[in-house]
Each structure stands twice: as C-alpha cells, then as structure tokens.
C-alpha cells in the first residue's frame, strides 16, 4: 500500500521528496556503517555494527516501499538505480568513514536528528508513516544507547582519544546543517497535516541536544552554516563512489531477477 493516494499530483511529488530524504539517509549511512564489517575494534563490534547497518538499510527498504510505484520497478530501482543528483541524503552521511571515532560520532549525531524527526512522524496524519516511525523507533532506541556507550568509552581513553573524538565532532559539525536545512516544500506537508511541523524547525533543538549529550564528556559541538546541500542533490564524489560500490553486482546485469 502506497502513501499519499488521496493527495493531488503536486503534493504527492512533495511527499515523495520528503520520504526520499528519510530513506536515502538510512540507506547511505547503513552502507557506510557496513564498511566497518571485519575492521571494527572488536570482533563483537563487527557483528554489532553490521547488525545496526542492516537495521538502517531495512528502514530504507521499508520507506522506499511506501512510495507509489506505478511502473512496478520496485524498491531496488530506487536504491540502486539513481544517479547521485537524484539522491536526497545529507552529505554528512556519504563522507568516507575515516577513523572509528568519526563513524561513532556521525552515527550518534545522526541518531539524535533521526529521533527528533521520527518523533514528529508519530503525529503524522498519514497512518503508514506513523506505523513506519513506530517500527523504526523500536530499533533506534538501541542505536542511541550503542553510540552513547561507545562515546563514553572513547572519551575515557586519555588525552589522545579525546583529541581525536573532538576532531570527529568538529568534522560532523561542519556537515550537520544539511540534516535540517529549510526546504522549499516543507510547508506544504505541514499544511495537509502529514507533518506537525517543518523538519527545519528542529535545527536549534537538535544542536542543543547534541551539545547536551556530549558536553559531560568534555566535548563541544559547534555546527557551521552553510553546509553542503545534499537534500537538493548536490553531492560529493564520495557518493558517486559509494553508489558504484553498493550497486556493483546489480549493475553487472540490471535485468537479472534476484
């Protein structure tokens, strides 16, 4: 069952843009997280982080599945068949992994943003989005706990660990505004009750929530604007590389029936 069946064509297109921001974020971050498999600090963490990556990719799959698909090309076409310019993820999530501190900080900061976003969806006028948010939040609770636990562990690792952690926070802060950049179509979704408020309204509370979460560890979150415009299709070469890697098998034979 697809969302937005009762809406006119213009609103359906806006709703599609919005759902793609959510789903593309989850897909791209899920792929970056999965790259840690076999390289995480502990073998247990290999499995744990890969499991979290699978959760995120499953969320993307569920969200893509909510979109009308008149041509019947399916969810895989959305995940693997789009050019970088058609991707709506925040640039923050396509950045290469770098060190473990960066990946943990990025995932944690993203989870704080996602928590604000999916809490809004619980009040959506679109029942399918409410259900999707409830299901995602069941897992996101544990993702937040995972990130907070690792942050505490890394922050307690001495001056060098703390310095690297702050460098990771700074790198994430430079790209964070993309998560809640005001977008031209936001108001239309609020007007029809699909969203209780525009996502960009969360920017201040998001920055405050991140700062409150990491301040006790001796870290400081100082976000910068402007950040890159991933939501409008402006991406880095890293996303092109990610999409080529992620879709490599599918691209080898796009007509194959998997």
């Amino acid at each position, binding site marked *: 069952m697809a969302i937005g069946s009762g809406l006119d064509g213009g609103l359906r297109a806006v709703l599609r843009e919005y759902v793609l921001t959510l789903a593309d974020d989850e897909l791209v971050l899920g792929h970056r997280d999965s790259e840690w498999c076999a390289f995480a600090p502990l073998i*247990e963490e290999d499995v744990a982080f890969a499991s979290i990556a699978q959760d995120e990719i499953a969320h993307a799959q569920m969200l893509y599945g909510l979109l009308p698909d008149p041509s019947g090309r399916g969810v895989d076409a959305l995940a693997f068949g789009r050019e970088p310019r058609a991707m709506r993820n925040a640039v923050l999530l396509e950045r290469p992994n770098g060190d473990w501190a960066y990946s943990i900080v990025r995932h944690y900061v993203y989870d704080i943003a996602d928590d604000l976003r999916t809490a809004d969806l619980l009040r959506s006028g679109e029942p399918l989005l409410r259900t999707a948010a409830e299901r995602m939040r069941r897992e996101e609770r544990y993702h937040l706990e995972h990130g907070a636990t690792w942050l505490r*562990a890394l922050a307690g*690792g001495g001056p060098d660990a703390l310095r690297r952690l702050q460098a990771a926070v700074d790198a994430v802060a430079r790209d964070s505004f993309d998560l809640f950049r005001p977008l031209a179509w936001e108001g239309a979704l609020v007007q029809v009750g699909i969203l209780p408020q525009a996502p960009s309204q969360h920017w201040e509370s998001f920055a405050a929530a991140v700062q409150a979460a990491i301040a006790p560890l001796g870290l400081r979150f100082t976000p910068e604007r402007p950040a890159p415009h991933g939501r409008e299709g402006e991406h880095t070469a890293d996303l092109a590389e990610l999409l080529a890697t992620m879709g490599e098998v599918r691209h080898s034979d796009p007509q194959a029936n998997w």
Partner: protein
Amino acid sequence: MADLGIYEVFGQERSGAAFCHVGSLQAGDGDLALVLARELFCRRSEFVALWVVARPCIQVAPVAGEPLGPAEPRTYRLGVGYRDTVEKWQRFGGERGGDR
C-alpha cells in the same frame, strides 16, 4: 576500556522463565557488554530480559575427571525406577497394589 573482559550472556524468553546461557563475548565494561549482547544474541531470538555476567564473578566447581553426582545408582529416585513395580508385585504373590 583498556582492559577487555569476557562476559557470559543470559537471556530470558518470557517473563518468569529461567535465564538461559546463550553465549559469551568480549567487552571493555558491562555497559558495552550489554549493548553488544543485544546486537549479537537478540537478532533471531526474542528475549524479554538480558543479563551479562563478568566471567570472574562465576565460582567454578572443581572437577577431577569424574562426572558430578552420586557414586551408586539411585534409580528409586527416578521415575524410571518404578516402571516395573506392578509386575514385581504380582510376581511375588501380592495383590494388585491399591485395590484394597
């Protein structure tokens, strides 16, 4: 985090059920052990509660190559020890037990 330790993981399948050992893992502290246990052991089985126990907290019984348990068979304590009771009763000339 500097010192990694082994943690034993126990899961409870439903409220009131016994906690069962499901495996072990390595972690820097109990908090991380719980976070990892959830991702490692709750992917397929649904538990309502989870424990992690640092392995040094477990008191281990010494075993000297012999199985634990009594030296002599005590089948009278087991249900199987009463399987032939009726037949024995009849063989030794008694009436069926419980008829009087």
